[in-house]
């Protein structure tokens, strides 16, 4: 276990050593990894997906994927919150000398909430449209690795968060299938009001 943690810290320190070498890149990344850019961009994409289907069949697929992604996003966040009550890992800047590109968060480092949320959304959307799901996954990866580069997460925190997000999204997908015809009824009622 010690070897894994040492390797984890080594990857973090290797990535973080580049902070300050490319100021323009750092400025862009500072926006990208902020608490507001990625969550808003991903959520706005979900909003767009709801309305973007070009025919009834495509729209139904997109809307089911959006519902799955929204539920997975909420549950992934809740799972991280519950895990954080029982497991605390100090942030990298507590134990190592890192250059920060971000403020100093006080909550647990493991598992990474941004990774859990972003990967939950990406895998939820994947079912509706694999191409958009792939874009979400790339976005989630850049957001997560950016946080490691910025010195606020270890790589293992990101992997843990991503695993939680993907697992929860898969379970939500299964649950929605088991709950049929409830999702279909919800979509039909919204459809009657011309909202789906």
């Amino acid at each position, binding site marked *: 276990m010690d070897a894994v943690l040492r390797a984890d810290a080594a990857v973090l320190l290797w990535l973080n050593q580049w902070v300050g070498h490319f100021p323009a890149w750092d400025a862009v990344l500072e926006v990208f990894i902020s608490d507001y*850019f990625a969550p808003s961009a991903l959520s706005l994409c979900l909003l767009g997906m709801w*309305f973007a289907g070009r025919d009834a069949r495509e729209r139904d697929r997109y809307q089911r994927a959006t519902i799955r992604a929204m539920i997975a996003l909420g549950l992934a966040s809740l799972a991280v919150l519950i895990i954080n009550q029982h497991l605390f890992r100090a942030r990298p800047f507590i134990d190592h000398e890192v250059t920060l590109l971000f403020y100093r968060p006080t909550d647990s480092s493991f598992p990474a909430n941004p990774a859990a949320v972003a990967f939950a959304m990406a895998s939820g959307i994947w079912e509706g449209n694999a191409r958009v799901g792939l874009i979400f996954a790339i976005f989630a990866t850049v957001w997560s690795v950016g946080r490691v580069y910025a010195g606020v997460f270890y790589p293992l925190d990101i992997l843990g968060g991503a695993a939680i997000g993907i697992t929860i999204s898969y379970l939500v997908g299964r649950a929605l299938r088991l709950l049929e015809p409830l999702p279909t009824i919800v979509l039909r009622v919204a459809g009657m009001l011309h909202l789906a």
Partner: protein
Amino acid sequence: MSAMGHDFFLMNFVAGLGVLQMAASYASLRGMLFLRHRPLSGILGFLAVVGAFLWFFISGPRNLPDTSGGLSGNEDAWLFCAAGACAILFTLAATSILNYRMGREYASRRPGLEALQHTTFYRAFLSAMRGLWTRS
């Protein structure tokens, strides 16, 4: 509401309007467009999204913890939901007024967003309600 909360809501509201225009343009939901020209509506939507994000991130420091003027995760989530809901309501209401003449003769009671390819939300909703009334 804090200054950050206000700005965050505004950014998501304007960007939400833009995203809805882009989606409506892509899906040919003419009853949801602010402009009659479909591709132009999509471009306008894209510019609204880019503009909203640029304004938000250029207008002040945004990398702040929730103890020093930033937003907590919960505030983040409910402000986004509120902004998204307002963007949907505003779009449906405003386009129903702007495109008032659209789909006057459209009598189909086809459910779903597809009706908005031919008429406004107001007319489609009214038609759905009439349908429910006559059925009951």
